[in-house]
């Protein structure tokens, strides 16, 4: 025994009741697990051997891979079940855009159709049935005009080629123009009305005057212009489209939107489809129908005596070969619109 060491105390400590104490089993297990885990490779910690790990890292990793793969597969592709955009919106845009020249017939109709609809917009649903009938009637006229045109082509190859070119644009515009019609209720015959190539009616009238008999001519008269336009309705006749008409007679004047023109629109269309008379009409007009497309005038239809004179914008005037009954009906309709 020294001052700082005592064997007795050492022995007593060795024999103390707590000499054989051990830590609890859970403490031992925790220490050993921590020690083993500390020296495990990193990959081993993420991929424990069969069921040892509590966290299903394998399943989680596989899920992430699968999600990434599916994302790459659908990247850039259209999502099924997605709702399409409103059909009218897309078709409206192209119909309105090329306003100036390329497809003047249909485009102008689309544009004026909207303003025409504004003053008197009937419900589209109510317009559907009559519009369908009108479209059917227009289609029939187109088919008839096609047949006539085929015949004309055999006789005039050059004119037929020109008509074919012109026919394309309105044909394409016809489809968008149809949907645009609903908002503005207008007579479908308007499609045929608007198409009328300027020089052609004369040439066609000449060609048709040869074979025609009196009864045949009037009937066939409308055919060539329609045929010209024939491929039609497809044909664009610049300046014939109109959205409103100014009716002047006996010092009175009234501007009527096409939608409110009633029968006058169809009568005017038929009159414009009439053949051209070589006679010259002179004198003051008793009745004037100024056709305009928005702010732009497209032509004037005047009654001079018993004749009807057509003055297309920027083109020489010509006398139309209008049936008497047709002319009278148009005059009466115009006068009825003039009355307050």
């Amino acid at each position, binding site marked *: *025994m020294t001052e700082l060491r005592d064997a007795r105390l050492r022995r007593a400590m060795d024999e103390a*009741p707590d000499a054989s104490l051990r830590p609890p089993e859970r403490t031992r297990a925790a*220490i050993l697990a*921590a020690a083993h885990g500390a020296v495990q490779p990193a990959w081993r910690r993420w991929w424990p051997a069969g069921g040892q790990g509590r966290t299903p890292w394998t399943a989680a990793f596989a899920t992430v891979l699968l999600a990434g793969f599916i994302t790459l597969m659908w990247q850039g592709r259209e999502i099924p079940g997605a709702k399409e955009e409103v059909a009218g919106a897309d078709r409206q845009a192209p119909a309105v855009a090329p306003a100036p020249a390329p497809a003047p017939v249909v485009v102008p109709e689309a544009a004026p159709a909207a303003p025409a609809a504004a003053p008197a917009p009937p419900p589209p649903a109510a317009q559907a049935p009559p519009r369908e009938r009108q479209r059917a009637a227009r289609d029939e006229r187109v088919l008839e005009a096609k047949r006539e045109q085929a015949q004309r082509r055999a006789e005039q190859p050059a004119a037929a080629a020109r008509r074919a070119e012109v026919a394309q644009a309105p044909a394409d515009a016809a489809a968008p123009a149809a949907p645009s019609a609903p908002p503005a209720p207008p007579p479908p015959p308007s499609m045929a009305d608007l198409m009328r190539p300027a020089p052609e009616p004369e040439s066609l009238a000449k060609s048709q005057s040869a074979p025609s008999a009196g009864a045949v001519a009037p009937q066939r008269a409308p055919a060539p212009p329609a045929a010209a336009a024939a491929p039609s309705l497809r044909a664009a006749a610049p300046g014939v489209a109109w959205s409103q008409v100014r009716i002047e007679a006996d010092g009175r004047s009234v501007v009527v939107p096409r939608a409110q023109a009633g029968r006058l629109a169809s009568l005017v269309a038929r009159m414009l489809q009439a053949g051209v008379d070589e006679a010259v009409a002179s004198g003051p007009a008793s009745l004037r129908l100024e056709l305009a497309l928005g702010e732009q005038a497209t032509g004037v239809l005047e009654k001079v005596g018993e004749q009807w004179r057509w003055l297309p914008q920027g083109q020489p005037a010509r006398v139309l070969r209008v049936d008497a009954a047709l002319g009278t009906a148009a005059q009466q309709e115009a006068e009825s619109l003039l009355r307050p």
Partner: protein
Amino acid sequence: MLAYAGGDAAAFDVLYARHEAALYRFVRRLLGGALSSHADEVFQDAWLRIVAARASFRPQGAAWRTWAFTIAHNLAMDRLRVSGREVGVERDEDGDEPLDWLMAQTGQVAASSEDQAFWRAAGARLLHCLDALPDAQRAAFLLHHEDGASVEDLAQRLALPFETAKSRLRYALKKLRGCMGQYLDVLEPAR
């Protein structure tokens, strides 16, 4: 330890088995009776600290046992400090005296130093006496006797001047001898 630091997990198992009892005993005795319930936690923390510092162990320095016991000592002292354990708790030395009970049971007038039972009673008494020591003195005694650290080692491990470590140990022994009392009077000093 070096093998374990190199990635050999089995080497740790051997190391742990070899020093588990001594280190646990040391932690328990250092915490004393008042904080004996903390012994498991401090013991586990000590081993976790050893695992975390495995790469920093240098065999050229102190022995692994010294290194590990120092870690355990620091954790136990921190726990004692945090718990605000009163120092120098007086114990009632009347009545339940293990030696008296033992002598009564055995009918012996004087205990024999060879009697295992005597030593167990003496050990129990020593635990009581240790509990009564101030924390710092108890730590010095245990490190010196339990771990076999020299005074120089003790001073280094406790970051104390040599003389301070020596006086701390001296005081601890003095109090323990006084506390053990008749146990040591009976026993003859070991040769």
